[in-house]
């Protein structure tokens, strides 16, 4: 646990997350989201979840965001022109978010063991080995079901993009 790195990467994640929401240009938003995911992956490293760090970078920052950028360029989206600003909707949205954050802070204060520091791990962690062993023994059935789910999603995408919509 290195606090400086934690706060650095937390700031990176949250800062770029705000940039996703604030940017008008969809491409800039997507690239900010990539940086946000990279910061999050770094937080996974600080929590000794090395396998999830690699998966996060490969799947999210790599595959998913490439797909997003690909679609943005396919649809040829320009930066949004200024529409008439719906003030009531913006104020409402911000109020709901503020209420959510207030509730969140209250709940986090009430977590019974939240103020305790993380326990120290003395042994070496063979992270990928541990994850793989559990994945192929205890979680074998869900693993195969997820494989079927991915197949169904693939077929669904092909059908959606091939059919002539009238």
């Amino acid at each position, binding site marked *: *646990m290195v*606090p400086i790195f*934690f706060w650095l990467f*937390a700031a990176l*994640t*949250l800062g770029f*997350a*705000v940039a*996703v*929401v604030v940017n008008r240009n*969809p491409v800039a*938003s997507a690239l900010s*989201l990539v940086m*946000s995911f990279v910061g999050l992956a770094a*937080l996974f490293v600080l*929590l*000794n*979840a090395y396998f*999830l760090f690699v998966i*996060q970078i490969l799947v*999210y920052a790599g595959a*998913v965001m490439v*797909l*997003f950028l690909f*679609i943005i360029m*396919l*649809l040829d*989206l320009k930066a*949004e022109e200024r*529409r008439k600003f719906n003030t009531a909707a913006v104020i409402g*949205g*911000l109020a*709901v*978010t503020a209420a*959510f*954050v207030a509730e*969140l*802070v209250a709940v*986090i204060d009430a*977590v019974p*063991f*939240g*103020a*305790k*520091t*993380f*326990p120290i*791990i*003395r042994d070496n*962690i063979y992270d990928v080995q*541990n*994850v793989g062993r559990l*994945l192929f023994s205890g979680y074998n059935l869900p693993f195969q079901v997820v494989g079927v*789910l*991915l197949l169904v*999603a*693939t077929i669904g*995408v092909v059908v*959606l993009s091939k059919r002539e*919509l009238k």
Partner: protein
Amino acid sequence: MDLTLNDYLLVSGLLFAIGFAGVLLRRNIIIIFMCLEMMLNAANLTLVAFSRFHLQNGLPNYNGQMLVFFIITVAAAEVAVGLAVIVALYRLRQTTHVEDISTLKF
């Protein structure tokens, strides 16, 4: 000063709140979809933090990390299908602006 569980929960909660605000405030479907992904990732951070916090035989509790693994897989499938739907919608209406898609609006 060492990090506490609350630090991670706070970062994760703020990330979720930012994604939530994005879903409420933005009117571009693709941006809304990105913010949904951000919210899923905030949940993942909470799961990993709890997995590291509750040690099992001196190791992180890997059941939590399994859930994160499945969330990432399902989210990838969700993104593929969701973006295909958005492309189909765009071919039909030539827009990604949610206020132009108001067929179901009361």
